[in-house]
């Protein structure tokens, strides 16, 4: 088919959709995962394990509510511990979803169309997991709503000069906009499911959720404008969120935190870990659901390249941090650098360098960039590395600051680990549910990628 050869030549290397698909086959293939394919035993096992992990999370949180955060390893001088490490890690993971759906849309990277839907879902679930931590870390979680400026009988208002308040607004705006972006993207596809299902009740549910979408040209026109504007709004938003998260540290005076490189290096790190999570999810999903036609080698390659690029920005951030520690002339900063390299947590710092800087360099090799198995493991290494980065920033900076009489060590308890692994369970459980009830790939955006979708005036 010459038509299709042309379109794959235009987009260099592997095609975004394997040739031979039509509007009908794309629609059937994606909607069949939700509508006709029975849930496999593997799905039930995976869902079951994640469900149990979620129950463990609820148990850990229940006990926390009962006893207070003393059950965690946090204590002075390390008051932030796992809760903030995990919060920053999860928020960072969420960033890739918005990057894929918004920034790549504005840059007209049409390959994003087959991974944006589940990447957005990933964002939403990651932000939900992230939100758990600061809310329970405040100590009296039932009063967490005090963070918001609402008229109250105490006659007080929040302190807007504090980066922690900025964070409340940034993260809640991010959660809201991500949810809106994800849901509006789903509306036309929910209409497709409404029209495809044989089940009367499902038709009503999908019909209600699709708001009665009928694909009118006027509606599409406004819809596209809305989608583009939302992408334009989400782009600075996603960059601002991790910037504001980095302000939580950078505005403080703790050595190892008080540095201007933090905002860009946090944003790059967020995208780095986010793409790693996208790959860790996409690789098994495309294999199990036979979606190799839609999530092709090209998607894997491109994601690997984004990881390579952002990984180098992160490496630059580490380099500048170390350079400034040495060159800046501040003895506390210099000590922080020394302490990272030779202190009690030095092993973790070297592990961080290995996971985030050295091992990912193998992505320069094209063969590994196109190998799903290799990419899966490298992504896992990066996710571990990014978690270690936040651990180094939070714990290692706090445990030895200005006064050596107030130095200490951090020992996470089993409750810390249960909460952390519990959120991973919650995240994956939501992912499992999402795959079964909603189209994991944006159907209408896939249709626009087909050569038949092109029209001339």
């Amino acid at each position, binding site marked *: 088919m010459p038509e299709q050869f042309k379109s794959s030549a235009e987009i260099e290397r592997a095609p975004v959709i394997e040739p031979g698909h039509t509007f009908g086959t794309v629609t059937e293939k994606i909607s069949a995962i939700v509508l006709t394919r029975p849930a496999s035993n593997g799905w039930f096992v995976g869902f079951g394990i994640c469900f149990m992990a979620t129950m463990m999370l609820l148990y850990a949180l229940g006990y926390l509510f009962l006893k207070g955060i003393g059950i965690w390893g946090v204590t002075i001088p390390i008051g932030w511990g796992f809760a903030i490490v995990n919060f920053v890690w999860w928020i960072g993971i969420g960033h890739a979803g918005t990057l894929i759906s918004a920034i790549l849309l504005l840059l007209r990277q049409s390959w994003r169309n087959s991974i944006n839907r589940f990447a957005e879902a990933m964002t939403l679930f990651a932000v939900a997991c992230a939100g758990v931590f600061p809310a329970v870390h405040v100590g009296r979680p039932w009063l967490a709503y005090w963070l918001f400026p609402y008229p109250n009988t105490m006659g007080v208002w929040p302190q807007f000069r504090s980066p922690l308040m*900025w964070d409340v607004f940034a993260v809640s705006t991010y959660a*809201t906009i991500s949810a809106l972006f994800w849901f509006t993207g789903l509306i036309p596809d929910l209409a*497709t499911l409404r*029209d495809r299902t044989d089940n009367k009740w499902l038709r009503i549910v999908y019909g209600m959720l699709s*708001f*009665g979408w009928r694909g009118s*040209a006027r509606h599409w026109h406004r819809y596209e404008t809305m989608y583009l*504007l939302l992408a334009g709004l989400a782009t600075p938003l996603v960059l601002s969120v991790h910037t504001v998260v980095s302000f939580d540290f950078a505005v403080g005076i703790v050595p190892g935190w008080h540095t201007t490189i933090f905002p860009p290096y946090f944003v790059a790190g967020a995208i780095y870990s986010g793409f790693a999570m996208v790959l860790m999810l996409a690789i098994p999903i495309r294999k199990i659901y036979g979606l190799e036609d839609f999530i092709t080698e090209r998607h894997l390659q491109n994601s690997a390249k984004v990881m390579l690029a952002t990984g180098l920005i992160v490496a630059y951030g580490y380099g500048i941090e170390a350079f400034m520690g040495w060159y800046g002339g501040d003895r506390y900063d210099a000590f922080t650098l020394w302490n990272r390299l030779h202190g009690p947590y030095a092993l973790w710092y070297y592990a961080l360098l290995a996971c985030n800087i050295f091992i990912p360099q193998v992505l320069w090799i094209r063969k590994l960039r196109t190998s799903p198995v290799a990419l899966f493991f490298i992504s896992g290494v990066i996710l571990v590395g990014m978690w270690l980065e936040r651990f180094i920033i939070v714990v290692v900076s706090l445990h030895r600051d200005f006064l050596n009489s107030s130095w200490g060590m951090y020992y996470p308890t089993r409750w810390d680990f249960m909460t952390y692994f519990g959120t991973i369970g919650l995240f994956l459980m939501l992912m499992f549910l999402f795959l079964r009830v909603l189209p994991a790939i944006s159907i209408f955006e896939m249709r626009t990628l087909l050569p038949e*979708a*092109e029209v001339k005036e």
Partner: protein
Amino acid sequence: MARRDPIYGIMAEFDSAQALLDAAKKTHEAGYKKIDAYSPFPIEGLAEEIGFHFNEVPLVVLIGGLIGGISGYMMQYWMAAVDYPLNIGGKPYHSWPAFIVITFEMTILFAGISAVFGMLALNGLPMPYHPVFNVPRFSSASKDRFFLIVFSSDKKYDPADTRKFMEGLNPRSLSEVPS
């Protein structure tokens, strides 16, 4: 119009996006103004062909963003400098650089919410029932078929003439939409 026409419109079905675009253009040029086109994905230029030119969504978003930004800043100013002034390390009560982040976030939040809800409201959604759903073939409008409708409320509409005109567009099928 005293009584409602029993027919909501005449609907033609097409196989491709190009066929729909061409048919929409011809129909509009033939003088039919109350028409609509349905497709499984957005088609560039189709809305213009059926006579839709003014898109209000950007204006709604601009107004939403301005409201969000101004109210976000004023909220902080009023709370931190007027209603509950607190001396924090000798910083001015109206410490505007510290207020920029939340002003920005509120701008994005309000603009984003107005984009989504503005689009839905202007499109008249949610609307779970619509006469076009009565056409059985219309269910493929969300899959791989393209539809064009001339509403019976159009001035030029005439049951026989319009039908004949639409047959001339070479549709795959033609159906009357009961209202």
